[in-house]
Structure formats: C-alpha cells, structure tokens
C-alpha cells in the first residue's frame, strides 16, 4: 500500500512539474516572440532560456528548501539571493558566449538586462517553491488521513479484541453458575436460563453496535444482577438509578465488566452480609457510575484468572472509547472497594 501511494505521489509530482514547465514555456514564448508569429527560433530561444533556469530552480528545491522547512529564513533568503544571481549570471553568460558553442550558426544575444533576468529566474523559483509546498501539504494531509484511518482501524480491532475477551468470560461465569444450579436441582434454573438468554442476546447482537441506549445497558445490568442473586439465593446487590437516561447513548458493555469484577471479588461464598451497592446517576452532561463492594482479606483487584478481563483491559477500553472525557478510579478504604467512573459529553 505504502509503495503504491509513494509511486502515485511520484507520478503526481512529475505530472505537476511537467505541467508547470509547459505552462512556463507557453508564457515565456508569448513574452519572447518578436514578430506577429511564433518562429522556430523563438521556440529554440525559449527552450534554452528555460534550460538555463531549471538547474537552479531544482537546486533551490533540493538543497535550499530544507532550510526553509527548518525555519532558517535568513539563511534561506541569503542563499536564495545568491542562487538567483548565479542563475541570472549563467543565463547572461550562456546567451553571450555559451550558446555559440551549443548552436553554432545561430545568432543569439542576451536580450534582457540583469533586473529582467532576475525577475524571470525569481518568478520560476518562487512558483516552483509554492508548488512544492502545496504538494507537500497535500501529501501531509493524505498521510495524516491515512494515519487517522489506521488509528481508527487499530481502535476497532482493539475494541473487537477486548469485547471478544469480555464476552466469553461472562458466558463462562454464567454457565458455571447455571451448571451449579442444575446440579443442585434448583427450581429457578429455568428462569435463570431465560435471563441468561436475554443477556446473551444483548452480548451477541447489541454489543456489536457502536452505541446503544443507556437504558439497554441498565437493563443488562439489572438482568445480570438478578442472575447473580438467583445464584446466591438472596439479594446481595442494590442497584440505584437516578436522573433522565433517555437521551444518552453509550458504547455497549461499558459498565458490565466493572460490575462483573465487583461480583467476582466482592461476593465470596454464601455470606448474606456481603453487599454490592451500585449507583448510576445521570444528567444531561454526565454519567456517574459507582460501585461499592466488600473484599476479602488480602484480596487484590487484579484479576488472577488467565484470559480474564482484568482491570487493565477495562482501563484500556475506557481510554479508547472515551479518550478525553472520562475519569476512572478505584479507592480502597478498610475492607471496602469503591469503583468510580465518570463519563461526560465532549
């Protein structure tokens, strides 16, 4: 891809420079023509005139313009004046002496004075430099666009990869729970399976969308909590939602990994006293998502399961989807964990 783009740039550059010299030839010819009609000698003269300028014009582009790019304006201006003078001198010398060796039998002189030749040379150098700057600007823009597309592709790829990590993790957890319930002959296993089906529908279909309604994510969290409560046979989570959620759209599966993490580390065994408190506050500009859960002694927030989502994955995903408009932190006070996530509209 890179090589093709590079070839295309080269071809465009060659075409543009060719066009410039053809246009310059036409304009110079119209200026140089002596009579009413264009004679062959006018064409020869115009071509030779261009030949005396071209090497200096490209010397300016190749060796001098980098000085301009690096901001050395004074040095560039000084050397540019030298190059323009050298080009004018060469043009004068060529048509006074050199042309007789190149084209013996022809009678040319240097028809213009120094000031006029300098104007012709400077005009060419100036327009060619502008042309080069425009070309580079277009190339830079194209490169930026390419990098931006690559970044987007990379983000999409990472998102998919992260989602791919989350989904099986949740599924395996839930299936493990279901397996336990069936083994225990629980009456509620049917309801459990239906809720699981709802959650899976969400995970499989809606999680592929770029953004979903906040209300759908809330429904997912509610179902998930219910599934967890069915598993433990007693209510151990309190989920409070406040504010207007209607207009908010968010990327799918933003809150579930945090909740999943809290259940994983916060509810151990069958302790009825263990509670998870989830608060979701929404206003027009911001969403506050807070989880408070107990933790066992010496428990760390780091996910120990191989292939699990882990807190790093959660952070990474938040950085990808809300690069400039989120705050995420975990506080630990005594035996409590506080997970805080704030998202705001940019």
């Amino acid at each position, binding site marked *: 891809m890179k090589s093709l783009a590079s070839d295309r740039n080269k071809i465009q550059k060659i075409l543009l420079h060719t066009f410039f010299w053809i246009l310059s030839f036409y304009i110079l010819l119209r200026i140089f023509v002596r*009579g009413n009609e264009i004679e062959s000698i006018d064409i020869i003269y115009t071509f030779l005139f261009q030949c005396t300028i071209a090497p200096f014009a490209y010397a300016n582009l190749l060796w001098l313009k980098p000085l301009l790019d690096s901001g050395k304006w004074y040095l560039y201006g000084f050397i540019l004046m030298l190059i323009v003078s050298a080009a004018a001198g060469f043009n004068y010398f060529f048509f006074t002496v050199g042309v007789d060796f190149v084209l013996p039998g022809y*009678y040319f002189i240097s028809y213009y004075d120094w000031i006029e030749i300098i104007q012709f040379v400077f005009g060419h150098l100036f327009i060619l430099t502008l042309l080069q700057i425009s070309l580079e600007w277009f190339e830079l823009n194209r490169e930026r666009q390419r990098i931006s597309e690559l970044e987007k592709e990379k983000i999409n790829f990472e998102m998919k990869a992260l989602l791919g990590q989350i989904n099986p993790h949740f599924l395996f957890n839930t299936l493990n729970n279901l397996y336990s319930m069936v083994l225990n002959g629980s009456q509620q296993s049917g309801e459990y399976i239906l809720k699981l089906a709802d959650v899976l529908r969400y995970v499989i279909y809606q999680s592929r969308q770029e953004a979903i309604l906040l209300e759908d994510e809330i429904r997912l969290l509610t179902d998930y909590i219910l599934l967890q409560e069915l598993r433990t046979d007693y209510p151990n989570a309190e989920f409070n939602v406040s504010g207007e959620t209607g207009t908010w759209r968010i990327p799918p599966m933003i809150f579930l990994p945090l909740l999943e993490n809290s259940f994983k580390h916060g509810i151990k065994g069958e302790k009825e006293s263990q509670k998870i408190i989830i608060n979701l506050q929404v206003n027009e500009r911001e969403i506050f998502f807070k989880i408070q859960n107990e933790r066992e002694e010496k428990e760390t927030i780091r996910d120990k399961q191989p292939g699990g989502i882990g807190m790093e994955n959660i952070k990474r995903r938040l950085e990808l989807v809300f690069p400039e408009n989120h705050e995420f932190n975990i506080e630990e006070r005594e035996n409590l964990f506080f997970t805080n996530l704030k998202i705001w509209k940019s």
Partner: protein
Amino acid sequence: MLKKAIAMKKFLIVLLIITSCVPSIHPLYHERDLIEDQRLFGNWRNAGEGEFWDGRESWKFEKLPPKQGFLGSKTPDPLSGYLLTITEDSIAAEFVARLLELDNQLFLDIFPKSEYGDIKGIENNWLQMHLFPVHTFARISFENKAMIIEPFDPDFIIDLLEQKKIRISHEKTGNNFILTASTDELQKFVMKFGREKEAYIDPGLFTRM
C-alpha cells in the same frame, strides 16, 4: 520641371543608400556612446574599388549646423555628430552622422538630416507624409590617411532572418526588412557579431580630396 527631376533623382539616391543596408528604426547609439574624431572632417572621394563602389561618390564631413528653433532661433545640437553630405554625380544629399565606438571598433550611424525637410525637391507634403526616416549603420576605420567605410551587408542579415537563424526584432513588408530592435539590442548584436567579415559588404576606400 527640371527642378522636380533633380529633386526626384536626389530622393532616389537616398533610397538607394538606405536600401543597400537593412534600415533600423532605432539608432545604434545612446547619447553617452557618442564620440568625436577630428580625422573625419573634410572631403573624401571614393576610390571605386569593389563591387559595391563605383568611384562616383564623395563624402563630406562638417560640423553640424545649429538647429532651427522657434521664431528663427538657433540652438547647437546637444549631441556630437557631423553633417554628412554625400554627393554622387553632382547630386548631393545631407545626413546627420554620429560616430560611436563599440568593442574597439568605430561605427557610423547615418540618419537623414531634418527628416527629409532639407532635401530640396521633396517639398510635396503628401510625399513627405509617406516617408519614415531610418538609421543605417556602417563600420568605419582609418588606414594610412585613407578612410574605409563598410556598411552592413543586407543580404547577410536578410538571409539569417529568412533562415530563422537570427533572433532580432524586425518587421517585413513585402521583400523589405526593417529592424525594430532597441538600441541596446542593436549594440549587443554589433558587439557580439561585429567582427564577422560576412556581416559587411566590400569595404569602400575613401581618400582625401
């Protein structure tokens, strides 16, 4: 009737001299280029050597008379120059000749005096309206008390113009060419190619009368 015939003959002589060179609208000199050479003054007779010269011509160089000004006032010509009277078979025509040096060579720029006004016999206003004064150029040198005049060869320039091998401003009307190049351009050509022998017709040798 006789007067008119003489005037027409003088006019034809002028035309002959002019058409023996490629005439130019612009002079070969700037004011700063003009010089004086005392050797020119006096009467010179052509020795009649070469194809172009037949020995019937005499050239007389004098000081330029003052210019006629408003209400008969007379002012000296501010530019250096000579009153050149060319006589052929007793028929005289007056010119203003300016001398200049380019690339260590002397050149004469010859221009009709008073733009035909003093040429007797051409008093018809309608005829004068149809004439345009032009400059012709010749190289000049001195050798053993002789003066050598070498007008530019019109065939040389016309051939180059027709073969498109010289790039000099000009106009062509019918078979006639007239140079329209500026003085600067003319001087550059003379300086660059003024030593080519082919650029001149046979040298005309003039001795003092």
